[in-house]
């Protein structure tokens, strides 16, 4: 099996999110980017698959910021190849539809028969990458997956629903998986090993052109400030009733 893990950088929301002049996007030069945490889960799941069934593993990321460290870290964790997609306009960030458009060819060239990526990311405003890719490639797929095993020409995936219910799915290869959680938490790559890899291995690069994006953001702004907790007053019954209402509003 050849597995491709597709990763991307997302804004680090722990850091300050700086808006651009026009207020329609984040000022990419002024914000911190980090690997999408679900992509890290996907990578871990792929590493586990590699260990259990001897798959070959290629990690792919578009250079929408400094992806080198992310890719080297993946190599340090045990990926066989790391592929950096470079091209004009990537640095401003791309939507998932665009990313999927680029990836269809790349994945064919890599010869992957399974693509693992994070189930979602904090910036996928135009829908999730896994399903964009599945539709583009015409492969079988599943999202919200929390466990994958190789089974000959197919993968057995565990998909999660709300409340802990799961479905066991047999997906014939080739397949795309949106990973929610790996059975094991992402492993730690010691800094010395990452540094070592940086010295001894290099990233493969590939020139790509992104297709046009399909959505228009009119504005981006922080949500209205709630200003601390809204304190609920009244007697116990009244408070309970109000909280029950709040819970209903949350869709519970």
């Amino acid at each position, binding site marked *: 099996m050849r597995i491709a893990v597709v990763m991307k950088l997302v804004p680090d929301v722990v850091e300050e*999110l700086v808006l651009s002049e026009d207020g329609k996007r984040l000022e990419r030069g002024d914000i911190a980017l980090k690997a999408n945490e679900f992509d890290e889960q996907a990578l871990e799941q792929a590493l586990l698959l590699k260990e259990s069934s001897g798959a070959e593993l290629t990690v792919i990321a578009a250079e929408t910021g400094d992806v080198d460290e992310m890719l080297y870290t993946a190599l340090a964790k045990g990926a066989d190849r790391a592929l950096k997609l470079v091209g004009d306009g990537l640095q401003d960030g791309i939507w998932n539809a665009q990313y999927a458009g680029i990836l269809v060819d790349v994945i064919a060239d890599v010869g992957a028969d399974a693509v693992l990526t994070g189930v979602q990311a904090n910036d996928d*405003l135009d829908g999730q990458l896994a399903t964009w890719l599945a539709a583009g490639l015409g492969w079988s797929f599943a999202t919200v997956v929390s466990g994958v095993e190789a089974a000959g020409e197919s993968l057995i995936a565990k998909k999660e629903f709300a409340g*802990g*219910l799961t479905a066991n799915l047999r997906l014939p290869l080739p397949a795309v998986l949106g990973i929610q959680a790996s059975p094991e938490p992402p492993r730690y790559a010691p800094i010395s090993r990452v540094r070592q890899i940086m010295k001894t291995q290099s990233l493969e690069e590939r020139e790509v052109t992104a297709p046009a994006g399909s*959505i228009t953001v009119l504005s981006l702004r922080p949500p209205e400030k709630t200003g601390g907790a809204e304190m609920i007053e009244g007697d116990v019954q009244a408070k309970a009733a109000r909280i029950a209402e709040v819970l209903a509003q949350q869709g519970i």
Partner: protein
Amino acid sequence: MKKVLAFIDVVDGQPGEIGYELLDFARQAAPEAELVAVGAGPQAALEGLAGADRALWTVADGYRPDLVGEVLTAAIVAEQPDLVLVGSTAVGMDAGTYAAAKSGYASIAYVRSLEPLDGSLAAQSVILGGKMVARVAVPDRTVLQVLAGAGSAERGRVPGRPAQVGTLAEPAAKASFEGFGRPEAQDVDITRHDVLVSVGRGIGDASNIELAEELAEALGGVVSSSRPVVDAGWLPKARQVGKSGNKVKPKVYLALGISGAPEHLEGMRDAACIIAVNTDPAAPIFEVAHYGVVDDVLDFIPALTESLRVRQG
């Protein structure tokens, strides 16, 4: 706007609440449009969808991701709606973007509301971990993934079936279904639950944990706790939230009798909605909570459980 499709989640034969919410959401956003419910599942799941004008239904059992994706694609191709609504759920994530990509529709995710914009619509999407709200132009022919809670299931649920039910042939699916798995009671993984009823030392006694269990059951969530409760042996270690326990990010976190020590906050401050109940109005937990109640948990918990039961009928 003439026609809206609403995709109904069905898992294990059971329609999810989100379907009713979408019907309500659609009615609010486009009152005059024709509303078509789409889904795959047993016929029985159509019950309660009378709020839709029509339904397009595929009778199917089990669960296959590409099946739901293809059902929605087929419905879109057949109906050519202006707007398609799916839920931001495990099912909606399989169906929504996939069908958009297949049918050439636009896709917008994490939508919490719609507003008019020059004769058309704009969506408000919550992204970046809730730190930003994006206003996005909604072009004609768009699939929206709508967040839970954006519509009211109560209003959306109308007894009976839609007046007209059309059938969609079961499309070919590559995936095969091999059965559902149910979580074992013993190995609750609190990091994977949307609702956590979390208790702290304020719960007083091991015997009161039961109150929290009842509340969790009424909410479809599980009980978690601060460390002292685990140390006291009242709950297993796997239920601990915080620095030396689990980091959790549920939709709703109820902090009952928890003071909000930094080590505890470290594990839960990213929850989407935090509701704190504490007798001490100065407890630091109120600084991170969205809703606060100053009261005795031993009075409040049963009152809330009762209140929820009343709501659910």
